[in-house]
């Protein structure tokens, strides 16, 4: 993020308490990091193949990446990684490329083996070279983005983030362009409802999503090109966002890097809690995906805002902060820089309660000052949005004002039809008018905003922080997986061995080799 927050702190948080919070978060994260370092998943392995250039799908739409990983798994297993057997098989020169190999393999025509000695050395070397091509493309994309940002310029914060969600990439494109012309700095294409539970990434341009559009490499490409076009027209680099989330988190991160997406929704626990994906699977996947994001210069957006749709935004305020500290820790461990960690939070307090706006300011300011270098992603009201679109428009305005007053990095502008339908074109335009007015009219109102030291706002912020430290202490002592099983986040219980996708997890054998992590961890 180019515009770090420089405003002097207003809350006067105790640095000692803040340090304790971070120390406890690291402690709580540690066992999970160990887990992620010593296990792989089918999606991590497929990512390796994708970086090496595998593309396409079979007649049923199942990608060759999936077919090849399945074939390897069925014959020699995945405990050593997919690279060793695959590049060993390729070494014979029988197969034109990875895709050809995959086609043969899925027809049952390839006898994989786990190479050892020089054969293994060679497989490691050649796979590393092949994956290096993909990484090089990611690096090029990163440089291109930097160049475009420099040439076109970055907008001032808070960046305005808008979603499109028609289900049809060809409807999405004009809507995204219209949004950019109307003032959006970031455009997110929401995914079709079912995608996160697919254990493969669909192929090609798609037109049939429900409440969102499939994340595919081709859709990414089409949309990034459309936004490049409009960026040039507007003289402002418009960012593209998608979701590295669900069962294919690592692969989608990879495709994002390959197609120059700019920001990705990517959370260490969202899939567990809101998609009932197995916790171990998620933690392993998120680490790899974050290593890719780190390399690609992609800003991640975490999903703490979602907790407040199932839990109460006042009672559960501290769970948001705890999750942010964990997300930050996992992000740092995977190599993301502070300015790539777009922690999420939200304006979800019941508008019927007294002083609700000041409570929101307290929470937003706490997050701002706890993570001064993070490009915070601030989410609008959703839960308390009803069919009263006028009232909704008003609530969104106060959200926008809270964003401006507390120096948020990215604000996802709310839609007045949130309680009704996925947004209409006009909702988005009205939302842009709303945030445009608030930003222009309030201007530097933050200069006049000074919550007194012992006033309502500062006291509330301190209280949320101390509740967070307390909860982190308990998690550090009892373990993060048990805490999740216990319903700590989003009041949803998710046991460590429940949920979808555990069968896609493989413990590393001693000779496990992953050319991608090999490269990614090297440069760190």
């Amino acid at each position, binding site marked *: 993020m180019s515009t770090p927050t420089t405003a002097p702190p207003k809350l006067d948080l105790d640095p000692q308490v803040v340090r304790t919070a971070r120390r406890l978060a690291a402690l709580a994260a540690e066992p999970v990091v160990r887990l992620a370092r010593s296990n792989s998943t089918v999606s991590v392995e497929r990512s390796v193949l994708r970086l090496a250039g595998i593309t396409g799908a079979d007649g049923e739409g199942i990608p060759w990446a999936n077919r090849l990983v399945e074939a390897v798994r069925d014959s020699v297993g995945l405990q050593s990684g997919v690279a060793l057997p695959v590049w060993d098989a390729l070494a014979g020169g029988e197969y034109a490329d990875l895709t050809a190999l995959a086609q043969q393999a899925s027809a049952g025509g390839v006898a994989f083996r786990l190479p050892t000695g020089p054969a293994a050395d060679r497989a490691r070397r050649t796979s590393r070279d092949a994956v290096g091509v993909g990484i090089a493309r990611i690096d090029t994309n990163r440089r291109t983005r930097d160049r475009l940002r420099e040439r076109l310029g970055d907008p001032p914060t808070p960046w305005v983030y808008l979603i499109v969600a028609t*289900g049809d990439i060809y409807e999405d494109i*004009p809507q995204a362009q219209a949004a950019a012309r109307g003032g959006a700095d970031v455009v997110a294409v929401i995914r079709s*409802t079912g995608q996160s539970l697919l254990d493969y990434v669909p192929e090609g341009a798609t037109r049939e999503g429900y409440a969102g559009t499939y994340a595919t490499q081709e859709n990414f490409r089409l949309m990034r090109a459309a936004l490049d076009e409009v960026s040039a027209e507007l003289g402002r680099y418009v960012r593209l966002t998608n979701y590295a989330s669900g069962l294919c988190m690592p692969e989608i991160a990879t495709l994002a890097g390959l197609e120059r997406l700019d920001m990705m929704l990517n959370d260490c626990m969202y899939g567990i809690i809101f*998609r009932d994906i197995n916790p171990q699977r998620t933690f392993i996947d998120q680490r790899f995906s974050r290593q890719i994001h780190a390399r690609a210069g992609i800003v991640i957006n975490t999903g703490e805002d979602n907790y407040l749709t199932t839990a109460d935004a006042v009672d559960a305020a501290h769970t948001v902060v705890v999750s942010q500290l964990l997300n930050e820790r996992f992000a740092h461990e995977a190599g993301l820089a502070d300015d790539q960690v777009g922690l999420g939070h939200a304006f979800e307090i019941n508008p019927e309660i007294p002083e609700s706006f000041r409570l929101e300011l307290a929470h937003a300011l706490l997050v701002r000052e706890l993570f001064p270098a993070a490009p915070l992603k601030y989410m609008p009201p959703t839960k308390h949005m009803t069919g009263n679109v006028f009232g909704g428009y008003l609530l969104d305005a106060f959200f926008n004002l809270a964003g401006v007053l507390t120096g948020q990095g990215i604000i996802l502008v709310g839609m007045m039809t949130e309680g009704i339908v996925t947004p209409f*074109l006009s909702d988005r335009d009205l939302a842009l008018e709303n945030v445009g007015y608030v930003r222009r009219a309030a201007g530097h109102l933050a200069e006049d905003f000074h919550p007194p030291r012992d006033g309502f706002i500062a006291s509330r912020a301190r209280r949320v922080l101390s509740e967070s430290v307390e909860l982190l202490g308990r998690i550090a002592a009892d373990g993060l997986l048990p805490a999740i099983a216990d319903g700590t986040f989003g009041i949803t219980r998710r046991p460590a061995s429940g949920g979808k996708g555990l069968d896609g997890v493989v413990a590393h054998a001693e000779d496990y080799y992953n050319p991608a992590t090999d490269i990614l961890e090297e440069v760190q």
Partner: protein
Amino acid sequence: MSTPEPQRHVRAYGDTTGDGMVQLSFTLPIPNDARAEGAAAQLAKKMGIDPAMVVHAKAMGPHFTFFVVYGRSAVVVDLAEVRVVDREYPLLSAADVNLAVRSRLKRKLVVLGACIGTDAHTVGIDAILNVKGFAGEKGLEYYRELRVVNLGAQVLVADLVARARAEQADAVLVSQVVTQKDAHLANTRELRDAFAAAWPDRAARPLLVVGGPRFDPAMTGELGVDRIFGKGTSPPEVASFLVHALLPPVAAGQLPAVPTRAAAVARMPA
């Protein structure tokens, strides 16, 4: 002057009885040029708004224009024509529900809940089922005589059928929140068909109840389910309906040991 007792025939009301005033907004896929306001006025007039004032026209890029219209709608609402899905059964307390089940069913009533299709919105079904409940009313799990199995989200219809059979479910409660492209209607029809196929004897199949904020409770016939609950449903309404639909009425002196679904089926549209 406004009459305290509404007439049978009423019009929309701006600030005077009978003025018919309404507010309308929409987008047209046309540029905001000289023709735009005329096009918007035409749309409004074809909807019966006359006179129609196009009070706002805003270009959204070169190909779309947003409009706000105010005007007088010719429509007269006939209140006598309004179909209301009345609650034709009494609202029972948890104690009464428990008593009814215990005394008339003589075993626990089994309720299976799920979100089907790709819908992952569980807050609504949880509000009905979980102890925590909704708006101060405890959910069905709190009712001692109900056995609740909540399968959560994104459940396949085939799995739901299998589970309903395995649990010997009396009622299956399904939530649908995502409505884009009428997904909720398509999924409900799939549900109906699968259950009809699995229980060709309609009287034997579990009661099918669907719910979600955008359902029209009057569509039971069309969708082939036993009951539809809309936005703001409270758990006792659902529990009371289950008692009403699944337990035969207490005939004087006679308490059937096993419920027949005949009563419920008889009430259904054909």
